[in-house]
């Protein structure tokens, strides 16, 4: 079994109200390390055995059409053993 990870982030130029909210909450709670915060989402997709190239291509397609909104987001597909 392997886990395919799809990470989706808003493109850098797109406003991220959630990340901003986190960034302004941090110092209120005493965390002063953050200059800025951007928030994304992560999908863990479990497949039987080693993922094949064909499977990864399918995942990429799903990432582009369902898991992310390519107009405002980018995604990254990677395999975790």
């Amino acid at each position, binding site marked *: 079994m392997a886990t395919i990870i799809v990470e989706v982030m*808003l493109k*850098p*130029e*797109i*406003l991220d*109200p959630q990340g901003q909210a986190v960034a302004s909450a941090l110092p209120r709670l005493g965390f002063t390390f953050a200059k800025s915060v951007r928030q994304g989402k992560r999908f863990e997709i479990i497949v039987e055995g080693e993922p094949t190239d064909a499977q990864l291509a399918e995942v990429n397609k799903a990432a582009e059409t369902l898991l992310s*909104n390519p*107009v*405002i987001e980018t995604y990254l597909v990677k395999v975790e053993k």
Partner: protein
Amino acid sequence: MALDTVSIAETTPNNEQPWRELGLKEDEYARIKSILNRRPTSSELAMYSVMWSEHCSYKSSKVHLKQFGEKAPKSDALLVGIGENAGVVDIGQGYAVTFKIESHNHPSFVEPYQGAATGVGGIVRDILTMGARPIAVMDPLRFGLADAPDTRRVLPGIVAGVGGYGNCLGLPNIGGEVVFDETYAGNPLVNALCVGVMKHSDIKLATAHGTGNLVVLFGAKTGGDGIGGVSVLASETFASGKAAKRPAVQVGDPFAEKVLIECSLEIFAQDLVVGIQDLGGAGLSCATSELASAGSGGMDIQLEKVPLRDPSLSPEEILMSESQERMCAIIEPSKLAAFMKICKKWDVTATVIGQVSEGDRLKITFNGELIVDVPPRTVAHDGPVYNRPIAKPAYLDSLTCAEVPTPSKGAELKAAVLKLMSSPNMADKSWVTSQYDRYVQGNSVLAQPEDSGMIRIDAQTNLGVAISTDANARWSYLDPYEGAKLALLESCRNIATTGAKPLAVTNCLNFGSPEDPGVMWQFSETVRGLADACLELGLPVTGGNVSFYNQTGSVAILPTPVIGVLGVIQDVRTRTQMGIKTAGLDLYLIGTTDDDLSGSEWAYLHGVMGNTAPKADLAMEQRLINLLLDGQSIFEAAHDLSNGGLVAGLAEMTLRYTVGADLAVSVNLFSETPGRVLVAVKPEDAEQLTALSNKFNITIAKLGTTGGDDLIINDAVIPLSELSQAHSETFPKLFG
């Protein structure tokens, strides 16, 4: 890229500049050079290109729109007219109301959710900048065919975006339209209306007066959102393979906007601003040049002071950014501390970015280097004006009359009613409107599916306003002059059926490419028709919006002038609603019915357009409005007849509270003759209705009585349970 300053521009007159990529035409670029007596700097080029775009400059529509001024009726109600962020009308008791519709069509096609959401946000800020508290929104929407794959992408996103933004702001969404036609495939229309209320003394204008006064930017930080959105997105037809021109989508943050609203209203309440402007299309370019030209003209801006979300933005990008939830205010230095205190309280970033200066130049520096030095009027108002070629389109000569079967009884009629009322255009829109909060704030008196949305303004006196938006694009296609008048009249009727008196008009004119002479003809006829009708009815046009380039290839959308009418009702408790609530009422048809099937919903279901629109009878419609207002106290229910004709009106009135009716009808049930209203009255009030009919010289006909669980027309028995199911299952089936 090195900073392009005014002094560099003076010494390098022949540098190549990307004016074409920014959407400017060759002669427009030449004109900028002649205004400045040199080539523009890249920042100036950015400003001119966005401000001279179709969306901002109205360069194709200006010559026609001036009719709204020339033909303006005398009106005591109009406090602020066309030209400001939104018009303001007097509704009595010291209250003023401001309302406006704007389009956000192109961004909503690219990214439906954010496009629609920021459309709502933009119009709400327009209303806010007038000094008003926004109190309700409405959204007329148009899509390609309901079962088309792209409609399934676009519609749910747009509806969710409208709902998401409006609901977060706590603004009730009290109406609108959802209409399907194949010409809107690839060109969905998202028109957003907002209405706001204030006291007369609170009106604010977009002006920068007083040398030494400060220019303050407040609200969200500036990012790379929608750069060039105006020039590229709203003013050019989409062509595939030009992905590089697609700008960054603007993302809205309704919670930031909510805070901005409360912060601004507190600032207004303490009278801390000289002038104010929101940042929408064309961002800072628009706000600085418009504020400066409305004042004495002089303004100095230090652009490096603009707080940035993305520090890598170039000055050109800062000037063009369409980041949402930002406002620009002009403040006397003595009031800055109080202003900043309020911003701090609401956690709103506020920064002094410049000063009103002597002279008549808008000068922008970036880290001390002069990068913009222009007469602001040339940017904001003296853009190119085109008198584009106009030609009556050829399609008008090949139209054929609408010959479709119109059943009048029996099983045929029943099947036809079920077919009509389950068609996407006529089906129950609850799937859409239940995603909107209609009752938040507790002042919504009427909301969709009622004829108009109604909001209580004063909880003590029960003063209220009603708003309706309407368009019949097929009639406008067949005859844009009459189509515009008919849209206005329908909207007025929708106001009057609820018991409110029509007071003022706004509009959102959605058309194809102005470079097509046929489209330009449709547009000019539309404006002429609307201006003529407003003059005759004595209704001022308070403002509006033009959206061109709603076109895919050579196919333009149906000409779609969405007309919004605002009415006043002295006591909202007396309003009339559309549904029949009790048995034993008499149902009357007011107005006469002809065979008007061209452009009708029924003909459309048969794939037939027809050949002519009905002629608008303004004098009769005015009498009808007067009749409705005079007789308001006897109407148990009243409903305007429009799309789907009499049969649709009957279905909608009986379905509302599931109270049936037994009727005998001799006129064409599917005809869409304008100027008709269905009313339900108690039998003892019949005499009074006859007297009204005589007084206003309008035909009435008794159709039957209310009651039972069926809609019975002639001998066709249509169980309401069956009709209701057909009517309500269409949207869930299509969109899940």
